[in-house]
């Protein structure tokens, strides 16, 4: 299926002590915002690390834009934008230079890079911080730089781990609008979060992860998704304990 931007099949990765993710199947289609929700330690970040090669799966396969990420064909990573854990913001560089460096790491140079950076600065309202060194920025504004770096090249697949962390309400709205625009333009988007209200506003699909397993899905338009979420998580915990 050509419109699947990300597919995980039977993916497992177990840390010492048994934690990790176990037999996860998950996909993200073009034009879709797929939210992954779970409590702290449920396995969201581990799963996202597996998607960009920060971790190798013990079992199963991860396909990005139709290619196995450890296969010989090679994934076109220039078409992917990810922010997992810390934003790529070097303290000694100002906001704009950080974004130019992120563009260069995706093979963008000269005018193309400058245009992409200007667009991201405008979209996430970073103009006040464009000439400020990142070490002087607040955590929230560093996060905005990291998000701009992940989005500015208009990737076909976007993977964001807890993207609203440290963002102020205005940053949350700007991000929401940026993601909706990209999904409308055909990007496949996966975001992880533990803020149910936030993901319900933008997600097309919500998958629930608990104890490293996908334990069900939630209807983003459901009336009481918080209750449904906890029922799913507690049932899963009762089953595994």
């Amino acid at each position, binding site marked *: 299926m050509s419109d699947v931007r990300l597919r995980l099949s039977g993916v497992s990765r177990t*840390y010492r002590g048994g934690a990790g993710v176990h037999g996860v199947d998950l996909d993200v289609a073009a034009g879709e915002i797929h939210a992954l929700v779970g409590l702290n330690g449920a396995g969201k970040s581990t799963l996202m*690390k597996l*998607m*960009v*090669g*920060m*971790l*190798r799966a013990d079992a199963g396969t991860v396909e990005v834009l139709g290619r196995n990420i450890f296969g010989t064909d090679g994934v*076109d*990573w*220039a078409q*992917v934008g*990810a*922010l*997992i*854990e*810390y*934003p*790529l*913001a*070097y*303290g*000694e*560089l100002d906001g704009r*230079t950080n974004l130019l*460096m*992120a563009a*260069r*790491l*995706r*093979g963008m*140079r000269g005018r193309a890079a400058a245009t992409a950076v200007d667009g991201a600065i405008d979209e996430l309202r970073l103009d006040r911080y464009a000439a400020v060194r990142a070490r002087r920025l607040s955590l929230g504004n560093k996060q905005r730089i*990291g998000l701009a*770096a992940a989005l500015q090249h208009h990737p076909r697949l976007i*993977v964001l781990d807890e993207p609203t962390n440290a963002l102020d309400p205005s940053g949350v709205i700007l991000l929401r609008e940026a993601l909706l625009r990209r999904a409308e333009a055909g990007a496949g988007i996966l975001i992880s979060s533990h803020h149910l209200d936030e993901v319900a506003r933008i997600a097309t699909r919500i998958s629930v992860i608990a104890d490293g397993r996908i334990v069900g899905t939630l209807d983003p338009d459901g009336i009481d998704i918080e209750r449904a979420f906890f029922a799913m998580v507690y049932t899963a915990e009762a089953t595994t304990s």
Partner: protein
Amino acid sequence: MNALIDAVAVESRKARSARVLWSTGALLTFGVATLAAVVVAAGRTADPAILAKLGPQAATGDWTALLATAAQVTAAGGLLAFGVGLSWLTGREFADGTISGLFGLPVSRSAIATAKLIVFFAWAVVVSAALTVLLLVAGFALGLGAPDGAAIAGVARQFALGALTALIAVPAAWAASWGRGLLPGIAVTVGILVLAQVSVLADFASWIPFVAPAFWSIHPDVDSALALSVVPLVPLIFGAATVMVWRRLQLDR
């Protein structure tokens, strides 16, 4: 190849704004030049007590004294400065958490690690050249006159010593990458420094790559110059090991 060019462009831009590299480079160049100049100025006094303390080489108070002192200090101080610089260049990605942003890119981590080594060596060459120029300025300012043939050879040796010292600091990159932080790189640098200096003082094992530049700086003869041929083994082995660590890297600890 394009990926490596992109990685070098990014790493060199980061390096140009890096306070650590500017301050370390300035400390080495001005520190060594000042120390050598002070020793030569002291050697030009007529006080026999001071002359006795300086020893026969430094007491001559000429270009030979200036360059011999600079070489001795560079062999130790240069290794420390270059080791700290390289530990920072590689280990800071782990310490700052920016390493997570270097996955899922068309520029591979192997290319980024290689670019870091290239930028490091370029920085070390610039610092070595600046130190050499500063020593010449110090010599003229002290009124040592135009350098003769031996002094010109000493100046060239000083520049080469800087570059060679940078090459033997490369294990710091491997240690900082393997240990995922600055401190392992600095610890390995100090270890190499101790090995080199103790071997020189004991007049032992001049053929060991880590020892050869320091030995050559103290005893620049044919044998010690020949021993320098093994120095490139250090960046080749530890440079390859560094790239391998970055290629296989998993953020699992």
